[in-house]
């Protein structure tokens, strides 16, 4: 995968005839146009990247293509045939397969049966009998690297494995057009690399691909062309190298810091050249980026804590300390136990040994609500909003334990000020928000609790770069106002750039700790987590 990958392929795909065409697609929910007159052409054999801010309508667009939402107006052609009014299953059988951003595994079935169902009802009249389909599932699972989980039930899988399963289910259908909705969210750099490789391989096998992704390195690295959606409209389309130069796109989506990263990605074909990130001057952050460790008293003290679920032990004698006023990053591969550690602090998983002290009080045997009352608020991975309540009602759930009415009003305004998108959507049901907006809502709900210590699990998961920037600024601001933060983040670069100190967790043990700036320079960490 050298520099030439994108450039040499571009002319090939450019000459391809359109496999798919969307003409003036509009989708309204009530008065709100989620998509507003989008024209889009996908050429045979290309990889088309679709980017745009959270709530820009990317997932809705895919839903319209696949018949899960009916476009209010417009026309969709596949192989020149009008599929606008076809039911989803028929569209699937014609050869359009998709993955879901919020993964939809068939939980009680084994991994093999999940994929076999795709192969069974598969695309283009090549349906298989149940037995054949199960064999085909084995092949596909080997391709995506899930063969070692083949007989497990889907409910036992971790998030990255569930993403792979999504991909495997779609692939088993032998699609001609594959729509990938954020399959890389939640993967670390090394895993992103292998996912990119896999997508290239699928594409080389003759599958045309539309990919929605916020992981800039990936989208810049694999896309032949990019289309940018913003507020439901297409604001730009072209080669990746052109798109990252577009001022409108930078303003609407990328933000300056990520634009630089992205440029590095598209121009060099890869972002992995040593020094690109660090050499790039980042003046805006330097202004507020914390550098020195704070002396202060330890606010959270974890000593030799072990924890796990059922018969499975995950954390082994973990010790960690967060001082008053610090931002501490917790990094590690998927499955290392980062989420479990946050769960253990919140008492959603019970510690099996060791002690947890917070602000002088012993929380080792506390109940979850006592932890919240003590001032620890947890923004969980996967948002966990109340989908049937409005945004505002969700935010107000964050003050469940508070009685100070006026201050609550004030805090609500404060949160709306920090996250203006939430104010625009305050009366909407949380379940109707886009993935990124849900994440904002989850962070906002956490802030409403006026935490002393905020635990954040995967802040950037599925968020547009600009929003990640905004949220990081929000976090730095509340940190300056005195809130201590323990941050779990898959984007190790971002995490360490914004933290005072960091801990590295591997297979349930802390293997390294230190100043964030030191960790960022550490060759071992750069290799393992930054893919450098």
């Amino acid at each position, binding site marked *: 995968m050298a520099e030439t990958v994108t450039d040499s392929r571009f002319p090939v795909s450019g000459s391809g005839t359109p496999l798919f065409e969307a003409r003036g697609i509009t989708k309204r929910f009530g008065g709100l146009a989620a998509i507003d007159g989008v024209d889009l052409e996908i050429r045979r054999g290309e990889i088309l990247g679709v980017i745009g801010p959270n709530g820009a309508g990317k997932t809705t667009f895919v839903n319209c293509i*696949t*018949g*899960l939402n009916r476009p209010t107006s417009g026309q969709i052609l596949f192989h020149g045939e009008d599929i606008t009014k076809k*039911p*989803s*299953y*028929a569209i*699937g*059988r014609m050869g359009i*397969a*998709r993955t*879901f951003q919020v993964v*939809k*595994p*068939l*939980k*009680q*079935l084994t991994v093999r*049966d999940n994929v*076999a*169902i*795709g192969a*069974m*009802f*598969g*695309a283009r009249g090549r*349906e298989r*009998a*149940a037995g054949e389909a199960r064999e085909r599932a084995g092949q596909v699972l080997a391709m995506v690297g899930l063969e070692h989980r083949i007989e497990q039930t889907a*409910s036992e899988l971790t998030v990255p494995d569930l993403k792979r399963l999504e991909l495997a*289910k*779609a692939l088993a*259908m032998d699609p001609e057009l594959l729509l990938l909705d954020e399959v890389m969210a939640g993967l670390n750099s090394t895993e992103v690399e292998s996912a990119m490789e896999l997508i290239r391989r699928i594409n080389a096998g003759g599958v045309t691909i539309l990919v929605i992704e916020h992981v800039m390195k990936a989208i810049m690295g694999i896309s032949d062309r990019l289309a940018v959606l913003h507020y439901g409209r297409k604001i730009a389309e072209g080669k990746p190298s052109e798109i990252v130069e577009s001022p409108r796109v930078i303003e609407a989506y990328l933000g300056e810091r990520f634009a630089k990263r992205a440029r590095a990605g598209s121009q060099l074909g890869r972002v992995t050249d040593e020094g690109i990130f660090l050499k790039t001057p980042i003046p805006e952050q330097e202004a507020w980026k914390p550098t020195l460790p704070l002396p202060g008293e330890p606010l959270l003290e974890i000593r030799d804590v072990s924890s796990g679920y*059922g*018969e*499975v032990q995950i954390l082994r004698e973990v010790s960690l300390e967060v001082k008053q006023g610090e931002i501490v990053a917790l990094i590690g591969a998927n499955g290392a136990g980062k989420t479990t550690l946050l769960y253990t602090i919140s008492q959603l998983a019970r510690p099996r040994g060791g002690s947890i002290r917070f602000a002088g009080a012993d929380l080792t045997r506390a109940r979850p609500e006592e932890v919240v009352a003590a001032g620890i608020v947890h923004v969980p991975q996967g948002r966990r909003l109340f989908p049937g309540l409005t945004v505002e009602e969700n935010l107000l759930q964050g003050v469940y334990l508070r009685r100070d009415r006026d201050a609550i009003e004030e805090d609500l305004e404060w949160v709306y000020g920090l996250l203006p998108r939430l104010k625009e959507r305050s009366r909407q049901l949380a379940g109707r928000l886009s993935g990124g907006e849900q994440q904002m809502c989850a962070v906002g709900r956490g802030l409403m609790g006026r935490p002393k210590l905020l635990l954040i699990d995967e802040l950037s998961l599925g968020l547009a770069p600009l929003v990640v920037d905004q949220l990081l600024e929000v976090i730095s601001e509340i940190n300056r106002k005195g809130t201590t933060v323990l941050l779990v983040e898959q984007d190790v670069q971002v995490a360490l750039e914004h933290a005072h100190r960091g801990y590295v967790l591997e297979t349930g043990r802390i293997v390294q700790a230190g100043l964030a700036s030191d960790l960022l320079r550490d060759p071992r960490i750069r290799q393992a987590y930054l893919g450098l």
Partner: protein
Amino acid sequence: MRAFRIAFLLAVFATLLVLPRFVSSYKLLTYTTVLCLAIMAQGWNFIGGYTGYAAFGNVAYFGIGAYTTGLLMISKWHISFFPALAAGALLSACVATLLGVPILRLKGHYFAIATLGVAEAFREIAGAWDRVTEGATGIDLPLRSDSAFYYYTALGFVVFGVALTALLAKSKLGYGWVAIREDQDAAKMLGINTTMFKVAAYALSAVFASIAGSIIAYQNIHVAPNDFFKIEYTLQMIIACVIGGTGSVWGPLLGAAVYQLLSTFVWSHFIELHPTVLGGIIVFFVVFLPRGLMELLRRFAAVLKGGRFGSDVFLANIRASRLD
């Protein structure tokens, strides 16, 4: 293990075959009722167990089967029992298909409420349509004092039900149902015509309920709205399924037998508290065995084969079915 299983099943089947020779004809009526409960539960298993749609109105088809069979047998054509039973099943399938297309679009409890409404509507129709159904009085069927006939008929359909379930569970239809249960949007995108699959499951469940209704009607020789459209039948078929294990081949049959045993036992020991005690036992099953006795049997079988019981997964399953 496999040989043992087959031997065990053959033994059970042989016992069931010779049973009528050894018990009184009154007792045999009870057994027939249990078998009919198993038939209904097998039917409910398709829509409720495999497809995951909590149908609360299947008694409607039980009643339709009973009335159709009865009315055809006493009509001027004097149609004999089996053709009348088939006609009832066919009518039930048609009604279920017509109703299923709109109500299967509803999700979760909305679907459950709609099906409850359907059952009530049919009870009202049967009660009010005097000219045909003789209203609340009901109709009388020709007498046949051969209790073994009902028993063997029911047993035959139970065996048919087990075979059909086993066959469908491994077919594309079965896989499609389970996919719908687990995630409907995902199922659609995998190329499954969800509407057709759901309607098929619902119609099939209606056919089974209808067959049970026909047999019971003939056995009771009297069909009246309040006896045949009562919600207890729906509840019993659901409970039998839950006790045995929803979405499994043998679950409904096992559940029906265990439910009957429990019910008889409780009747004879706690006459006054019968509903309370039985209710408590059902709650116990739902809470501690959300996947039914079949799950427990599967785990014991695994231990016998030298595997592990898998208590972690077992407990995780229990937890997964609770809110907190």
